C-alpha cells in the first residue's frame, strides 16, 4: 500500500503482534496526545521530542513513545497519519526504540460506525483509498495463483437514511475500511492497545476505574483487539461505551484540577502494582500539558489538531535522569534548547484560568 510515498507490506505477511500490556521502564519515555487527523501537527509533536529528523525519519534511538489515541476524526489526514505512525513503529524497532499507539474514543466510535465527527476531507481521503484498494484487488484477481481478495463492501447497504446520495459512496467506503475486520481496522487499529503500563506510568485515553482493573487490563486489550478483528460483532465491548468507559472517562482530566476525583484515582492506582501516575488524553487542556492530583494524573491532550483548538504541540517526557518534563513549542518558555522549550517543574503548573506561574529552570 503506497500512501504519500510510503510503502508498507500487506498485513497478511506481518502477523499481528501479540498484545503486550506491561512494559518495563525505559530510559526515555515520551507521551503524545490526541492528533485528530492533522498530519503536520503530528509531525511537529514528534519533531519537538527529537523523535524524527528533517526527513521525517525516526531518530529517537531507543526512546519509547506512547501515542494516546484519537488519530481519527476532526481532520482529513487520518490515513496518512496511520501510515506515518506505522512507518515510525518499524523504524523505531530497528533502533531499539518503540512506538505504541492506543485506541481513543474516536477509534472505537468509527469502528462502530459512529461517524458524527468525520470531516468532509476525511470522507474524500477514504474515497481515494477505496478507489485504489479496488484497483489493487482487480490486479490481484488477474494474477493467477493469488488468493482472490474478498470484497470489503460485502454486506454494506447501498444507501442510508440520513445520508445524502452524494455522500453514500464515501460513507460506504469508510464503513468498509473501518468496521470490525475491515482492511484499515485490521491493519492498523487492531494493533492498538487500549490500556498500557510502562514502568510506573499507566496510559489510557480516558481513564480507568477500579472495575476496569478488576476486569483485567490484559483482558481488555485482548478483547478489544478481537472485536476490531471482527469476532464480536459491530458493537464495542461494554467498557468502551458510555461516559464511564476507559476511552470516555473524564473524571481525572477535567481542566479544572479541583474537579478531579483524586481519591478515586488513588484507589485505582493502588490496584495496579507499581503504578504512580495515570497519563490520559481525551480532554483538551487549553493551558497545555499539566498535572492534577499531585501529578498523579497527567493530562496530555493539547488539542493540537486544526480541527480542535489548533493548540501548540506539547509532549510529555519521562526521563530516567531528568524526571517528568513537558516539552513545549510555546515560545513563552525560553530555554537553551532552541528546538524544544522545557517546562520544568510540572508540579508547579496550576491549571486555573489566567496567566500561569511556571518556574523554568535555566
Amino acid at each position, binding site marked *: *500500500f*503506497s*500512501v*504519500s*510515498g*510510503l*510503502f*508498507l*507490506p*500487506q498485513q497478511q*505477511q*506481518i502477523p499481528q503482534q501479540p498484545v503486550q500490556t506491561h512494559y518495563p521502564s525505559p530510559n526515555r519515555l515520551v507521551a503524545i496526545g490526541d492528533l485528530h487527523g492533522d498530519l503536520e501537527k503530528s509531525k511537529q509533536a514528534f519533531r519537538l521530542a527529537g523523535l524524527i529528523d528533517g*526527513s*521525517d*525519519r525516526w531518530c529517537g534511538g531507543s526512546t519509547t513513545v506512547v501515542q494516546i489515541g484519537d488519530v481519527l476524526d476532526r481532520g482529513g489526514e487520518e*490515513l496518512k497519519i496511520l501510515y506515518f505512525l506505522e*512507518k515510525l513503529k*518499524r*523504524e523505531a524497532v530497528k533502533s531499539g526504540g518503540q512506538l505504541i499507539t492506543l485506541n481513543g474514543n474516536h477509534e472505537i466510535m468509527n469502528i462502530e*460506525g*459512529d*461517524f*458524527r*465527527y*468525520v*470531516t*468532509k476531507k476525511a*470522507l*474524500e*481521503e477514504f*474515497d*481515494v*483509498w477505496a478507489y*485504489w*484498494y479496488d*484497483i*489493487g484487488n*482487480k*490486479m*490481484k*484477481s*488477474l*494474477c*493467477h*495463483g*493469488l488468493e*482472490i481478495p474478498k470484497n470489503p463492501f*460485502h*454486506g*454494506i*447497504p*447501498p444507501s*442510508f437514511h*440520513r*445520508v*445524502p446520495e452524494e*455522500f453514500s459512496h464515501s*460513507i460506504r467506503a469508510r*464503513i468498509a475500511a473501518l468496521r470490525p475486520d475491515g482492511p484499515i481496522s485490521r491493519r492498523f487499529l487492531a494493533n492498538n492497545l487500549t490500556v498500557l503500563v510502562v514502568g510506573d506510568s499507566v496510559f489510557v485515553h480516558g481513564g480507568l476505574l477500579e472495575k476496569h482493573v478488576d476486569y483485567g487490563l490484559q483482558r481488555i486489550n485482548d478483547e478489544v483487539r478481537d472485536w476490531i478483528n471482527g469476532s464480536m460483532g*459491530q458493537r464495542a465491548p461494554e467498557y468502551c461505551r458510555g461516559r464511564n468507559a476507559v476511552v470516555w472517562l473524564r473524571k481525572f482530566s477535567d481542566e479544572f484540577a479541583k474537579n478531579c476525583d483524586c481519591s478515586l484515582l488513588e484507589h485505582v492506582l493502588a490496584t495496579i502494582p507499581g503504578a504512580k501516575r495515570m497519563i490520559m488524553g481525551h480532554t483538551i487542556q487549553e493551558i497545555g500539558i499539566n498535572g492534577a492530583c499531585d501529578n498523579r494524573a497527567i493530562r496530555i491532550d493539547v488539542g493540537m489538531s486544526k480541527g480542535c483548538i489548533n493548540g501548540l504541540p506539547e509532549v510529555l517526557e519521562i526521563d530516567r535522569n531528568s524526571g517528568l518534563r513537558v516539552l513545549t513549542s510555546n515560545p513563552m518558555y525560553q530555554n537553551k534548547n532552541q528546538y524544544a522549550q522545557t517546562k520544568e517543574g510540572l508540579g508547579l503548573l496550576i491549571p486555573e484560568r489566567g496567566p500561569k506561574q511556571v518556574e523554568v529552570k535555566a
Partner: protein
Amino acid sequence: MGQAQSAVAAAAAINDQARTQPSSSFASMDSIIAVCNIIIFCLFTEAAAYGSDENLSLDAQAQKALDCPCVAELRNGACGTQFTEAFLCFLKSTAEEKGSDCVHPFVALQTCIKGNPDAFPKNIIEDKEVKKEEPIQEYKIYPPIWFKESRKPKPKPKL
C-alpha cells in the same frame, strides 16, 4: 531479507526519495496513492519464484519472472507496459530497501491507471460471483453532524 521485510524497509526510503522528486506526481496523489506497486509485487512471489535461479544473472531472472503465466494478464491491456516496467524495476532492484529506487516507474503505472479506468478489468469469473445476491446486513451508523446542515432547505426568496 524476506520479501515482506524488504518491502517494509522500502517504506522510509521511498518516502525520502519522493520528497526530493518534483512535487507534481505526489501532489496530485495527495490522498492515498496506489495499492499496486510493491505490495502487489510482494505477493507475486510465484512470479519471483518462477524466475529465481542462482545460475542466472539478476537481469535474466527478472526476465524469466515476467514470463510467468501468473502475471500474463497484467502485462496485457492498457497499462501493461507500465506494469512490466515497474515490475522489472522492482525485481532488479538492489537497493537496500528493494524497490525504493523505483519511484518513477511506479508513478508512471499509477498515472496510467488513473487515465485508463479499465486498465485492469475485473476477472470475468469473479464478476459472475459478484452478481449473486449479497445479503445486506442490518447496519446502523451515525452520519457526520454536518450532514444535517448541508441538507437544510434554503429560505425561499420573498416576492
